């Protein structure tokens, strides 16, 4: 735990790039499986987690509830009987086919979400995830395993394209709806009062808009900034709102949207497309015809091409790792209560104030990180676009 606190402090002091990723792995190792040794490597650990987490919502300490529902081996029973913080954390930061509200196992209350599947044999299949009864029953030939939808017939190897509205999709849509409603109301507020300063909540948003426009877009792109400001604003507010919603522990928050690699991948893809579609001749010349001896091209061109891909790739990883690490740390502090509680209930009560205090502290840090990561993503996007559209006559200008 002290290792993680140390790393959090370092991240707080600006080493935003790769430390969170490291932290994420450390957290994974530390909490993944208390009975396993920390020396266990990540891949093995993940297998262990997926072996033990075959049920969507069982993470209580009561073995009987689980034993009744489990269809798996005796070894899995024994493992699940104990409180497994690694499994609990992975379930919370991962995706799910229903939106868990409260309760454990059979008593869990969750909002069922639509399952949308495409298979070449069955075509499009749509049904409610409630039909799976928390992963206990198969439906229309499909069943839920480890949170994934697989064929009931295990020998069937046909690909299933899972386009379900999962918890993350639903949470993202809630955040997007919120963002659309707020910004459109804001635009009405502005157009109805021309030339006047905004009032109330909008007065809080305007500095953010001006900040993105004047301090993020303009320094990087100069006169061409106005073309990209709407994109930067959309990216910034999408990440920021989703980060904040992710910090709300109850519905409709709590989903780890911006800490999901698929979401950050799409965002990075948007950046990648924007940068390369708008790149001017200097940008392409710098990649394919740098001002170096021709023989150096053999080395330089692959490096430059790698750089083009790496820039958005790093954007993807940074956001994913930072937000996921934040969620893991907060959940980890809560896990302490139950780890100690499993040893002795009184010990659990004793640890809880400390745990809550640390969680409050981390949540405040995460509020900062929520803004910071949205800002960093937007700033780097702006810089990448700025570099691609920069008008210069010598390729070395920006080195």
């Amino acid at each position: 735990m002290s290792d993680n606190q140390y790393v959090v402090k370092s991240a707080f002091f600006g080493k935003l790039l790769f430390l969170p990723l490291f932290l994420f792995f450390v957290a994974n190792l530390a909490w993944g499986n208390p009975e396993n040794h920390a020396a266990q490597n990540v891949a093995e650990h993940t297998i262990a987690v997926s072996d033990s987490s075959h049920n969507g919502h069982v993470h209580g300490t009561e073995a009987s509830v689980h034993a009744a529902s489990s269809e798996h081996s005796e070894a899995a029973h024994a493992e699940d009987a104990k409180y497994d913080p690694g499994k609990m954390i992975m379930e919370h930061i991962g995706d799910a086919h229903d939106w868990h509200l409260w309760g454990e196992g059979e008593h869990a209350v969750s909002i069922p979400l639509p399952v949308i599947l495409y298979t070449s044999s069955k075509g499009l299949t749509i049904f409610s995830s409630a039909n799976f009864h928390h992963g206990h029953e198969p439906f229309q030939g499909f069943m839920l395993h480890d949170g994934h939808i697989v064929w009931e017939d295990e020998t069937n190897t046909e690909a299933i394209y899972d386009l379900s509205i999962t918890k993350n999709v639903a949470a993202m849509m809630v955040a997007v709806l919120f963002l659309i409603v707020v910004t459109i109301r804001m635009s009405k507020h502005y157009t109805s009062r021309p030339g006047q300063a905004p009032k109330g909540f909008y007065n809080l948003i305007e500095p953010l808009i001006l900040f993105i426009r004047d301090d993020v877009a303009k320094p990087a792109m100069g006169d061409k900034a106005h073309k990209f400001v709407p994109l930067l604003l959309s990216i910034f507010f999408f990440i920021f709102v989703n980060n904040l919603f992710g910090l709300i522990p109850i519905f409709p928050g709590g989903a780890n949207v911006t800490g999901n690699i698929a979401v950050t991948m799409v965002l990075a893809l948007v950046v990648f497309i924007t940068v390369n579609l708008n790149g001017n001749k200097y940008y392409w010349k710098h990649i394919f015809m740098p001002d170096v001896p021709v023989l150096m091209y053999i080395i330089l061109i692959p490096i430059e091409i790698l750089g083009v891909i790496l820039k958005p790739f790093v954007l993807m990883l940074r956001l994913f790792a930072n937000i996921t690490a934040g969620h893991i740390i907060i959940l980890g502090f809560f896990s302490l209560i139950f780890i100690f509680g499993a040893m002795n209930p009184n010990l659990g009560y004793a640890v809880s104030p400390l745990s809550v205090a640390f969680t409050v502290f981390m949540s405040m840090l995460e509020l900062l990180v929520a803004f910071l990561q949205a800002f960093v993503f937007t700033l780097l996007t702006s810089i990448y676009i700025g570099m691609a559209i920069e008008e210069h006559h010598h390729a070395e200008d920006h080195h």
Partner: protein
Amino acid sequence: MQLVTPAIGLVFWMGLTFSILLFILRKFAWKPILNSISEREETIHNALTQAEQAKAEMARLQGENEQLLAQARSERDAMLKEAREIREKIIGEAKTSAEDEAKKLIARANDEISKQKNAAMDELKKEVANFSIQIAEKLVSDKLENNEAQQKLIAHHLTDLTKTATA
């Protein structure tokens, strides 16, 4: 690893949602908001420029006023000075003319006096002659017995007469 494997469903929905978000926000939110902000900034900028211009105009007018005031003041001072000079000149002239007049008067009076004096002297001389004649007549008529005594007497009378005449 499940955590770093992008799920195809999420990629699809994220792509779709984000495209829609981008389209809606760009068209219905950011465009009007950014336009309003830049319009407002322009208005404020214009207002500030105008205020600056008005200030400069005010300063110019004030400077002009002060200049006018200073000019008026100097004009007034000049006029006062001129008036004072004129007054002094008039007084001086009056004084000199009065002095001249007085001198003239005095000279005239002196002339008159000397004329009167001369006339009086003439008169006196005539009188003295008359007296002398009368005395002589009296002396002649009183018989010229004692020549010496008579001479004395004449002399005595003459001094008396001249004394009274000059007194």
